[in-house]
């Protein structure tokens, strides 16, 4: 079973490897893992709070080549996308773009989970911040 050129390219030259400041309120972090194979994937997005558009995306993946390629491709897809579009990304899109072999489909599922988890983290930070700012005057007058 040969891997596609695209998988090998993403594996040899992964895009957007690195970290964003996880304490930044505009950064969402998703860390997911696959206990069956021991893979761990961290994916982060930085969102422009005015427009809701993802301006930057980074990843770090500990796992097989397909897991690395899946998360590398995911970060490329995310940049320029709105948060609402991002949560719609389905793993099959990654499977198709990379021509992942059937036994590696779970790697794309992991990437989808990482995206959803990162966006959920960003949204949670936003609502927490809103609630905190609503709560502030009450605290001040108390």
């Amino acid at each position, binding site marked *: 079973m040969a891997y596609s050129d695209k998988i090998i390219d993403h594996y040899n030259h992964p895009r957007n490897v690195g970290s964003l400041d996880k304490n930044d309120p505009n950064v969402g972090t998703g860390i997911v*893992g696959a*206990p069956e194979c*021991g893979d*761990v994937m961290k994916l982060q997005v930085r969102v422009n709070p005015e427009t809701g558009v993802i301006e930057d995306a980074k990843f770090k993946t*500990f796992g097989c080549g397909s897991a690395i390629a899946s998360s590398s491709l995911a970060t490329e897809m995310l940049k320029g996308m709105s948060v609402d579009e991002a949560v719609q990304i389905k793993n099959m899109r990654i499977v198709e773009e990379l021509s992942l072999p059937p036994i590696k489909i779970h790697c794309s*599922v992991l990437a989808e*989970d990482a995206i959803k988890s990162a966006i959920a983290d960003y949204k949670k930070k936003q609502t927490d911040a809103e609630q905190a700012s609503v709560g502030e005057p009450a605290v001040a007058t108390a």
Partner: protein
Amino acid sequence: MPTQTGAQAQSLCQSCGVVVPSELMLCESCERLLPLPDRVSYFEFMELPLKLDIDLAALEKTFYRLSRLFHPDFYQNRPNSEQRAALERSATLNKAYTTLKDPTRRAEYLMKLRGFEQSTEKNRVPQDLMVEILELQEQLEEFQSSEGGERERLAQALRAGVCELKERRAELGKRLEDLFPIHDRAGEDRRAEILLEMRETIDRSNYLFRIVENIEKTLESGR
């Protein structure tokens, strides 16, 4: 005798018509070996109750006894159907033995029997461990791109890390086996909760195994 796990539907020998113990499907009257029904679990097959805290010595004894009983060599002069059955039975026996002998595989097998399926829900992911693994992975990358004394220092730190991870993995293995008798005694209402704890323990252990393997491989190859 293989009757500890409750009554199965009775099976009849296709050759002489007597009742055959359904876990073995070996006719005691005419010694014909019949095809094994799918519903027989490894526990039943190895004459064990459906429990996790098992008697390993008994398991081994059953394995040797059944190995002789089903050995394909003894069926060479029998009809094809029986030769096939003997071969099949020996393969099942080996799978049953290796599955039940290993505590983790035994627990996972029982989970499957109980319909407690592995799910990839994110709440199963231990976040603290994920972060730790990513940090270790970064240390490993740092080692790979370092040279000289710095490289030696990083290698030492990683080796110490591996020792500690192995200890933790051994502790998880012990915890899993401690849960076995608790599981076996628990009623229906608490069983799911205990199976979940086992699942988490095995997951953590799997993650540790992978990162240890990866660090050791890198340190060995030096790349």
